[in-house]
């Protein structure tokens, strides 16, 4: 599993989605540029932490049982999605549609799902890798 590659792509994706949602609401301002650059650090940390703690373990544990990555995706991704979707909806509703929380949960949901796809698409040496 190419974890560093996946994490770097995921962090960029999370960064882009988070700021697209925020900027679509608040507009672009020169004062926001510094925050925009600095935000990459917490976004990187949160995205990495979430992917390393929720997505990677599923691939690591199932790899020992001889599942191919695509089998893992098809078997476990739906349940991951249902839980992630439920938590995201709960988070957005409980914060009364706060734009920052919407940006956070939307970027987290899309990024983790895309991370699943990138892991599952990785080329493997045969089925049992």
């Amino acid at each position, binding site marked *: 599993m190419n974890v560093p590659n996946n994490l770097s792509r995921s962090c960029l994706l999370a960064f882009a989605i988070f700021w*697209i949602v925020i900027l*679509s*609401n608040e507009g672009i*301002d020169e004062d926001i540029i510094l925050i925009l650059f600095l935000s990459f650090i917490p976004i990187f940390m949160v995205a990495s932490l979430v992917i390393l703690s929720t997505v990677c373990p599923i691939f690591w544990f199932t790899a020992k049982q001889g599942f191919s990555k695509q089998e893992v995706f098809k*078997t476990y991704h739906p349940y991951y999605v249902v839980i992630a979707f439920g938590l995201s909806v709960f988070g957005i509703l409980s914060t009364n549609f706060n734009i920052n929380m919407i940006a956070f949960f939307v970027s987290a949901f899309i990024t983790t799902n895309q991370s699943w796809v990138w892991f599952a698409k990785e080329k493997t040496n045969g089925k049992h890798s």
Partner: protein
Amino acid sequence: MKHILIIIASFLFSILFFEKSIGLNLSLFSILTIVFLMLYNPQKIRNRTIRLYILAYITTAVFVFIQHSNLSIIANCVAFFTLVGAVSEQKTSIYVNWLNGIYTSVAGYFHRNLEVSTEKENVSWKKDLDLIHVAKLIGIPLLFIIIFVLLYKNGNPMFNDLVNNINFNFINFQWLLFTVLGYYLFSNISKPIPVEPATNKDVKTTNTLYKSDTFSEEKLKKEKQLGTTLLGLLNLLIILYIITDIASLTSIDTTRASVLSSQVHNGINTLIASIVIAIIIILYFFRGNLNFYAENKTLKQLTYLWIILNVALIVLIAIKNQNYITSFGLTYKRIGVHIYILLTLIGLITTFLKVMNIKNMVFLFRTNTQIAFITLILFSAVNWDHTITKYNLNQAQHFDINYLIKLSNRNALLLYEQKDIINISQKNKNRIDTKYWSYVKEVLKSEWQEISFEKFIIDDKHPSSEL
């Protein structure tokens, strides 16, 4: 052609929901979804089960328009996921439909993304790379141009004026994002996905229990003895409990809310524990070969007796709850207790059927989830705020006006109509007036996407010339 349909649907999605609250838009969205699914899956729509789910979905859409309650909105969402799940695979249980429906609606794109790459790996990778290249070609220069423009603005007043004259206000980026969300949703449901292996396993699983190869008379005899002793003693215990409960029921002081409240809540806790343990014990003993053991008649009879006694326990709790309601009025919690009692009763009946007809656990899950779905739809047809208010003001011995005023606006009209015939303080009458007129204003200013049936009632009561 199919892409154009998705684009049209996503525009309609934006028109219906962007910066609007729920009302007519959800009902229209339901119709749009049904038409969309019909166009994309014409073969599957002919199936009888799917037609029933379409009917259920339309019914909930009508309830959203008429009742405009949170419960009707939840029922509509559940019916949406059920229908989408059923289109992915018709012969599955309702809970698998929910799984398929949610997965298709929220992550269909990601699943298809992987499947396409599996089927046509080489072509897809090339296509992927091209797309990434195009995205880079547009995205990266755009990002840096924006950053540098914002930086240069501070360095030169003429450049600053020039930039300030550029106005992108005519583009609503939030609206664009919302339309993308609509595109994502309709693109996902255009081709519903069955979750494997759950769907396949569910299709293959029947409701009937079969005798296994490890049928051992000696083992089953011991298990039967254990079951008979346990259920016999539990039956005696529950009989004793019911007798004492009936005795205490006749001696309760119904004028004291705290006594009644404690009785009902204790009863409910007992009921929850009793019913759950009862069902677990029954399911444990009748999980396999004991169903086919010739000498299981006594155990079966004790099981039936225990189920009947649990039903008696439910009736007692229902009586206590009803006494409570008669004395102190309806509340959401008290209605919730009645609904819980109803569902428990249904649970016991299906457990009885499972034992009698030698069915498996899947039968129980399937039947009970279907009943829960139907119950949700039926209860979403009721305006509970109106029902609670009407009952409490007209039939209950005591009522809490503060509770009624704090309910949602759906009882505002009834409270306003009855405020002068009920015995309440002037302060509360003023609160009712405030609630009613803010409700009227809210209804009258709603846009066409947000209207519900109550708009016609208010229009009828207050023609625009009056306000």
